[in-house]
């Protein structure tokens, strides 16, 4: 098999592989073209573990619109094309499979260090020229990289748009007040 068809991937996922479950109803990823995937059970643990490893924030109180897995599902549904949504989901599945295989471990036992180490590898630039690789490997790599990159970006966005981060770190005020602009102050 040279090229994987997006359709096949989607049906494979729909048939069983699931992402970001957790809440009893599961989390839905709506495709741009109207299709929807519901992510159920066991992989909630993965996404929590991955998110915490990429950007540890368990110890922080953060007021956000939604939990991180919900945020990821929402933003991927919202801001990506159907193709990229499919790539993201495929990337997710491949990355979690990789981690399981490499570290011979289950979701609830994987350590943050292991995930960080895996993500660091994935986020590195390609060392081997892409054209020398088998097309399937290129697709695999692209999907995995895309997943890791997107997830990292979303983790940053989720944290930095929280109330606490905005107010305490970025000193955000909705109404700064007249006279609060200073054109020139000493650093």
């Amino acid at each position, binding site marked *: 098999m040279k090229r994987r068809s997006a359709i096949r991937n989607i049906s494979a996922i729909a048939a069983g592989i699931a992402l970001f479950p957790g809440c009893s109803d599961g989390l839905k990823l709506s495709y*741009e073209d109207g299709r929807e995937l519901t992510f159920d059970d066991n992989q909630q643990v993965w996404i929590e573990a991955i998110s915490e*490893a*990429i*950007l*540890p*924030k368990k110890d922080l109180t953060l*007021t*956000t*619109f939604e939990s991180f897995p919900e945020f990821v599902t*929402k*933003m991927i549904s*919202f*801001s*990506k*094309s159907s193709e990229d949504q499919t790539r993201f989901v495929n990337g997710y599945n491949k990355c979690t499979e990789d981690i399981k295989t490499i570290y011979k471990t289950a979701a609830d036992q994987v350590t*943050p260090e292991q995930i*960080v180490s895996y*993500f*660091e590898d994935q*986020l590195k630039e390609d060392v081997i020229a892409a054209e020398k690789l088998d097309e399937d490997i290129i697709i695999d790599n692209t999907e995995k990289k895309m997943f890791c990159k997107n997830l*990292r970006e979303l983790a*940053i*966005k989720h*944290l*930095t*748009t*929280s*109330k606490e*981060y*905005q107010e305490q*770190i970025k000193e*955000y005020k*909705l*109404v*700064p*007040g*007249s*006279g*609060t*602009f*200073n*054109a*020139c*102050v*000493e*650093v």
Partner: protein
Amino acid sequence: MQKSNTYDAIVIGAGMSGGWSAKELCERGLKTLQIERGKDVKHIKDYPTTNLNPWEFKHRGDISKEVQDANPSISRCYAFKEDNQHFFVKDTEHPYIQDEPFDWIRGYQVGGKSLMWARQTQRWSDFDFQGPERDGFAVDWPIRYKDLDTWYSYVEKFAGISGNRDGVDTVPDGEFLPAWELNCVEKYFQSSVKKNFENRHVIYGRCAHVTEQQEIHKQQGRGQCQNRTECERGCPFGGYFNANSTTIPWAAKTGNLTLRPDAVVHSIIYDDKQNKATGIRVIDAHTLETTEYFAKIIFINAGAINTNLVLLNSKSERYPDGLGNDSGTLGKYVAFHNYRARISATCEDFSDRKTTGKRPTSAYIPRFRNVYKQETEFLRGYAAGFSANRWGGRSNEGIGKELRDNLFAEAKLGPWRVGSHMMGETIPKESNYVSLDKEKVDKWGMPLLHISVKYDDNDEKMIKDFHEQLTDMYERAGFVDIQLSDDHRVPGLDIHEMGGVRMGRDPKTSVLNEWHQIHSCKNVFITDGACMTSTSTQNPSLTYMAMSARAAHYAADALDKGLLM
């Protein structure tokens, strides 16, 4: 029926210019019907996002891929974001035909685009009004700066314009509220330009913000600007000028205004026997039912291109090619502002200085090319913005603990970054036009509009000159790492489209006279961007406001004298 649908005056459009027409006509005691195709937007009450914090936005400010893909034109507008997307017209909901690529940015609601505008308000000068005559393009404006001077003052006092009296003849001084201060790099650039160049200036960008509340603003219920810089959502303090907080409620207070939102003006009714327009045909935006309204005078303020559409669609035996189109110029000589070019650089000095807080404007470089004499191969010139900012940033490098430490580290101030964007005058040409499709109509039965507007060689030469001249100005100021760009944006994204119903002295070559009346149908007035004979380099809305106020008073005077009956 006719009686109950009859008014003294009708104003089509409740945006920036229509708000002024309605206010003035109502204040002069005329029972005025203001017709608006979009929904009503009440000041504050209908600004749904105005008090939301960043973490309260479901998508953190982003617009969905689906909406972006379906609406490529508005998605290219810098101001179209999650917090104010409800004020923008979706490309898909109101289609038009791009014979040449044109990003048409619209706001269909009470308030029009005055809700989302960037509030820059520089006066035009005689270098603009005399331009076509001096440089031999378009036709001579039938008015000069002296005709507008007092009307500029009149609208500035009411709207609240902050600025400095700079004494620069290309952008005459006005009635200003206090200006925000330029920062140290902006001031430094101002003095560098003054020292190194004759007749070039860097001034504060005058803007429609109440920086000091006057009695008139109190009466309007508007407070002082609180430096939020979230203006495009609608301001709960009324800190910036829009029609919703200012002109329309003021008109309503007279008891003479009937505001009818959700009503699409289809065409003007022209009576061949009486030789004048008698009213308008209106389609209900929801039920699609047609109603006719009648008045002695009609002001069209539908926004430049829509005003063209209404007139082109107003066909009668007398005017088979659109109301007032004896000259054959209706729909033609459309022009805009060329915003394609940018320059940015780093200022290595002032590393011990920074700004704090926010300010909703920046500096402005008035036009300096071809002002006193023709000095380049291209006609006319460009103005430019200028801003200097120093961002405090945190690295988002790394992963795991490293990433978290970076995000929580003390912000590191970067260098001062400076930048300018070009605002170039384009030359109105017959070949830049809008026209009606012969078959296709929209949901409201209005013919689809063809837009055929493009850049020309003059614009390309101007871009090159902007890059060269600004580079020179930046280099002499010692700025480094200079980067030039041309984003090749298509016309329209400047949101300063003008013309198609131009003013002129000669009915053979123009549609409107010096009082904005259709030459051959004097009870119809056009005071939005459609009337503009040329485009100048300055943002145009302040000029539309002054023109609307002036024409409305002229119309009211004429009615008082028994003319236009």
